[in-house]
């Protein structure tokens, strides 16, 4: 089902009515049923993937909980690794096969058969969300869910399955399972948020899209200024389409009294590219930070790289090389998250290069700023920083839209 079809508000409305009529303890069942309807609306064919994810992560969660309950801390660390690895192998393997296998073959120039599989709805979202759960159980942040139906609700919760945000089990589970009281303030603000999202997506993004399509399809016929304007419109389109979709989803969830994480925080006001990625698709950045960046920098390999560079390169540079390398990898992942295509890889690398070089140049820039007496409160510099960041983002987007 699409977030902008007429069926979606109908589904939300009918489910909400039933939700508040049913006793509190059973309300989560209504959400599960609604999620079933939403997901299977387009056909039962692609449901196999989400079932694989739900079952594999559910079982690994239980297994990890058993390991935690029966062993002391030191042994847990050793025993949990193969289980987490298994969950990742199954799910990311599935993701790779569906989304990236063909591209990988192209890049390697091999003549093996292409799979040509179509991605099911929300594939990356439900996989990332479920693997986050497995990691959280492994770390003891949450306890494994024993009820497979309840767990399926977490995996498939319909407002967020299409466009995110990527939720965390600890934050979502109580809201999903405990049943929420009827509060008209929730319904009012939920409807308002959804409607605002619809306007952004159907009105603003659509209109901007008309300009973008016209100019992009015939770039040679237009002046530089027009093309620049079209790039601006592309950014408007992208933002309104994405954040609009997320708002529709968050508004729908709010009608059930459920608060989903924010995914955008005024990205135009970002002062640096790193800051931008903390304001745009926040849940993806946070997920990569907690489940890839931190674990990566703590591996023995990175520790050894750090020791090596500290000794042989020395100074600030020596200290930040491992982190810069990890950052670069993260942005590469951000790139290919968006799509399996050379342009997305380039997009990821573009961001990675800029941010990593920013990290490496930071001490030099800091010296320059002290000399020029620019502090965090210097207004004109903040404005300059925002403009510069936006320009960098626009250029990245233009490049990315070249496919």
């Amino acid at each position, binding site marked *: 089902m699409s977030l902008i079809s007429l069926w979606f508000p109908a589904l939300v409305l009918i489910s909400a009515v039933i939700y508040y009529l049913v006793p509190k303890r059973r309300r989560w069942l209504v959400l599960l049923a609604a999620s079933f309807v939403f997901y299977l609306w387009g056909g039962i064919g692609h449901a196999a993937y989400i079932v694989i994810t739900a079952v594999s992560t559910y079982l690994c969660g239980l297994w990890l909980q058993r390991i935690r309950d029966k062993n002391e801390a030191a042994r847990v660390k050793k025993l949990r690794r193969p289980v987490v690895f298994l969950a990742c192998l199954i799910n990311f393997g599935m993701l790779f096969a569906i989304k990236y296998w063909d591209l990988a073959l192209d890049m390697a120039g091999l003549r093996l058969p292409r799979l040509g599989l179509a991605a099911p709805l929300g594939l990356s979202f439900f996989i990332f969300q479920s693997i986050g759960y497995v990691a959280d159980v492994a770390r003891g942040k949450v306890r494994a869910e024993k009820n497979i139906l309840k767990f399926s609700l977490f995996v498939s919760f319909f407002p967020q399955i299409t466009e995110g945000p990527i939720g965390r089990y600890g934050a979502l589970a109580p809201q999903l399972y405990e049943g929420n009281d009827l509060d008209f303030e929730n319904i009012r603000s939920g409807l308002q948020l959804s409607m605002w999202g619809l306007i952004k997506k159907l009105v603003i993004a659509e209109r901007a899209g008309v300009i973008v399509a016209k100019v992009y399809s015939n770039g040679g016929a237009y002046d530089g200024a027009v093309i620049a304007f079209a790039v601006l419109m592309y950014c408007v389109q992208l933002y309104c389409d994405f954040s609009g979709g997320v708002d529709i989803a968050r508004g729908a969830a709010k009608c059930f009294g459920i608060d989903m994480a924010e995914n955008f925080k005024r990205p135009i006001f970002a002062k640096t590219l790193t800051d931008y990625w903390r304001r745009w698709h926040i849940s993806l950045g946070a997920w990569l930070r907690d489940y890839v*960046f931190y674990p990566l920098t703590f591996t023995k390999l990175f520790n050894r790289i750090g020791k090596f560079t500290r000794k042989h390169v020395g100074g600030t540079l020596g200290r930040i090389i491992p982190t810069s390398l990890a950052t670069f990898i993260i942005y590469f992942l951000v790139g290919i998250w968006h799509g399996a295509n050379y342009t997305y890889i380039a997009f990821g690398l573009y961001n990675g290069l800029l941010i990593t070089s920013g990290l490496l140049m930071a001490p030099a820039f800091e010296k320059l700023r002290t000399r020029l007496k620019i502090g965090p409160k210097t207004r004109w510099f903040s404005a300059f920083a925002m403009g510069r960041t936006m320009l960098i983002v626009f250029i990245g987007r233009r490049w990315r839209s070249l496919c």
Partner: protein
Amino acid sequence: MEKLIGILKSVCPGVDFENEKALCDDGIINSLDIVLIVSELMDAYGVEIDIDDLVPENFNTAESILALVEKAQG
């Protein structure tokens, strides 16, 4: 504590570690800073800090960071 503040300032110059009480929550230090701080701490104090301890609560004040180091020292 002075040694710790010295290390923190070498990673993030210009941050008021003595007085700030919401380093992480207010976004004064970010995830990159945290990783750099942790690797410096592990180097300087010879301890292993657990990845499970990389939560905002542990990095909001200099005192909580010191507590983290002391916990790692056993």
